[in-house]
């Protein structure tokens, strides 16, 4: 027969201070564990959500980002005439020839400059990106020195708010609207008329051509034809793939950093749990002897102490996860090394991370508790009863 579960729980309650201290040590570890995973997940979600599966982006061969790429006007027109390009309601192809460059603008508050993506859009750009919605003001008029700013830019950068001006390319550009593209990379961009921007930056080439596929399954056919065409030195990627590639380096760095830290931290927390459980066993030698004398088996004693330790881990894990979940309100903005551009993203809690964190805390509790529990179970009844 097993020892009632309440025995384990009540033991924790009796020594509240120690329980709280040990559990909070574990809570911090779980907090760090889930926070780093959430950060990597947030980064990847942001960049993956930026693309749509049915959209194809065409950039110059071996360019890894739009900023490095260059697509000549002639080449862009060849792409436009391909049969795979979907046709919109007005009979025009759903295709956008865009210019993407970086400009330096200072951040609000710190005044430190950061690289911001400025995208020259054409008439159909918005149709290709249903995620982007205008939340304030209006879209820029074609042929004018007007721009719209993404939400993260409007909040974080000087001159990004509606009615303010940004200066670049020897001109002042008025921000006439703010758009929200949700948790995507577009929220960290400024958009303006492509022809105006090409003039201002004196760049007579586009950076990329994006279009919607008429039939999603015809991507491979299009890709082989375009990449085999001797007139074009371009490559085509699905938008989702393109943006995922851009997040790879950073996400990997975050994951390695997080993993290393978690391993080190968990060693500390496991030691903490072990100290607590050893003390719990040492204080209760007589009690354990009594239990054994009453007829409880070694296995039951082992189970009771392991359960106590697991429960300790669970308390810590839940508390850590609870605090980590508040991180979802925080937005981080940093430079993506692969594109050199500013990118804002937030911590994202997924179900996968939640269960991993809890499982991790249980493992910590188990590892910390199993040795002391073995010591308790192996005790000799007579010696244990004699201890006071």
């Amino acid at each position: 027969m097993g020892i009632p579960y309440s025995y384990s729980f009540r033991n924790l309650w009796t020594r509240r201070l120690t329980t709280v201290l040990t559990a909070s040590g574990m809570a911090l570890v779980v907090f760090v564990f889930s926070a780093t995973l959430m950060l990597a997940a947030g980064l990847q979600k942001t960049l993956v959500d930026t693309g749509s599966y049915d959209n194809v982006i065409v950039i110059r061969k071996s360019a890894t980002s739009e900023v490095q790429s260059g697509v000549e006007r002639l080449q862009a027109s060849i792409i436009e005439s391909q049969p795979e390009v979907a046709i919109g309601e007005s009979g025009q192809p759903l295709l956008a020839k865009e210019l993407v460059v970086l400009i330096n603008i200072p951040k609000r508050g710190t005044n430190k400059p950061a690289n911001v993506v400025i995208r020259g859009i054409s008439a159909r750009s918005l149709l290709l990106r249903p995620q982007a919605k205008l939340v304030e003001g209006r879209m820029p008029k074609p042929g004018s020195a007007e721009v719209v700013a993404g939400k993260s830019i409007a909040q974080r950068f000087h001159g990004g708010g509606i009615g303010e001006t940004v200066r670049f390319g020897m001109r002042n550009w008025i921000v006439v609207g703010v758009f929200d593209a949700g948790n995507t990379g577009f929220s960290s961009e400024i958009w303006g008329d492509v022809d105006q921007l090409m003039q201002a930056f004196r760049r007579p080439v586009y950076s990329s051509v994006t279009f919607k596929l008429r039939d999603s399954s015809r991507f491979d056919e299009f890709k082989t034809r375009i990449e085999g065409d001797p007139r074009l030195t371009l490559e085509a990627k699905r938008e989702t793939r393109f943006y995922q590639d851009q997040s790879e380096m950073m996400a990997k760095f975050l994951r390695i950093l997080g993993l290393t830290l978690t391993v080190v931290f968990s060693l500390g927390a496991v030691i903490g749990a072990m100290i607590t459980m050893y003390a719990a066993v040492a204080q209760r030698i007589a009690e354990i002897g009594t239990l054994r004398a009453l007829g409880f088996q070694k296995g039951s004693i082992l189970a009771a102490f392991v359960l106590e330790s697991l429960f300790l881990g669970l308390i810590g894990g839940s508390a850590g996860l609870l605090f980590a979940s508040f991180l979802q309100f925080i937005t981080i903005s940093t430079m993506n090394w692969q594109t050199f551009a500013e990118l804002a993203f937030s911590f994202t809690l997924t179900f996968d991370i939640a269960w991993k964190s809890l499982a991790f805390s249980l493992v910590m509790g188990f590892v910390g508790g199993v040795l002391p529990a073995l010591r308790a179970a192996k005790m000799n009844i007579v010696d244990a009863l004699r201890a006071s």
Partner: protein
Amino acid sequence: MFILKLLIRNALRHKLRTSLTVIGIAIAIVAFGLLRTLVGVWYSGAEHSSASRLVTRNAISLIFPLPLSYKDRIRQIPGVKAVSYGNWFGGIYRDEKNFFANYAVEPASYLDLYPEIVLPAEQKAAFIRDRKGCIVGQKLADLYGWRIGDMITLRGSIFPGQWEFVLRGIYRGAEKSTEERVLLFHWDYLNETMKKTTPRRADQVGFYMIGITTPDLTAEVALKVDGMFRNSLAETLTETERAFHLGFIAMTEAIVVAIQIVSYMVIVIIMIVAANTMAMTARERITEYATMKTLGFGAVHIAVIVFGESIFIAMIGGAIGVLLTFPGARWIETELSQYFPSFSVSPGTVYLDLLAACMIGMVAAVFPTWRGATIRIAEGLRRIG
């Protein structure tokens, strides 16, 4: 002396518990030390870059070039000793994973401006003579097993095509912190090719490096350069090399801040663990404290004993941690040499380590000390532990 003996005896009473706590503290101190070093490495590029060299780039952002004609105009400014120029090439060796910095530069003036690039005279001459020549740092050469005379092919991500270079020299850094994972080649090679393939991108320079006669003139020269090109098609932004590097670091500041927060968090976690140990110890010894009080020891005595024991345990853990930090850092330096130019623990980090260990001991002792010092004799004696 007597008290010290008592402290040590007390600390060794629960050998298992004490050693677990010491291990915990040692691990935390190692982690703390390595994280602080990582933050230091992040900034080391900027710290070791010269404050008397200026970088001029396009004011809009790094990706926009400047015309080559600016070179001679910058040279005319009083205080300018030498001007070199180059481009960030962004070439990829075989695969995106093999990332290293590669620049197209004007070789003679660039090497003059960078005395920290130490190159044997005959290799230097060979590099300058060969327009398709390149030089790499020792670490990079070791990483890919390159030897002088080898052919290196880079795939251009900004400048399309396959680019072939002949390795003419392998340089060493004058200081330990000098970056040795860089490939430098002739700007002329890049420019001549661009003239043939995309003429509109020819005669364009990514950045100018300016050497100043005396360091006090930097601010003045920077203002003059920027003033000279104001309201032109390509306005410039001139700053010291250090400021330029710091600007880059500031863009990834969020990550540095995160590492810093985490490095303090590890200390907090271990504080909790140590506090737990001390709380348990004090709880077990309440009767003893009461007995000592009966014998005439004052509250101060008991406070010193509890406090001292905690500091003693923490400092042993701290000392072990500091000793382990050095082999840890050396291991990182050799294993991850492609990410960090050097990973050496600074004396400041060691002091911070010891300070942190001391803090752990003190914070952990606060509550038990107070308990021990204020316990009433009758209450303590009545307790059956």
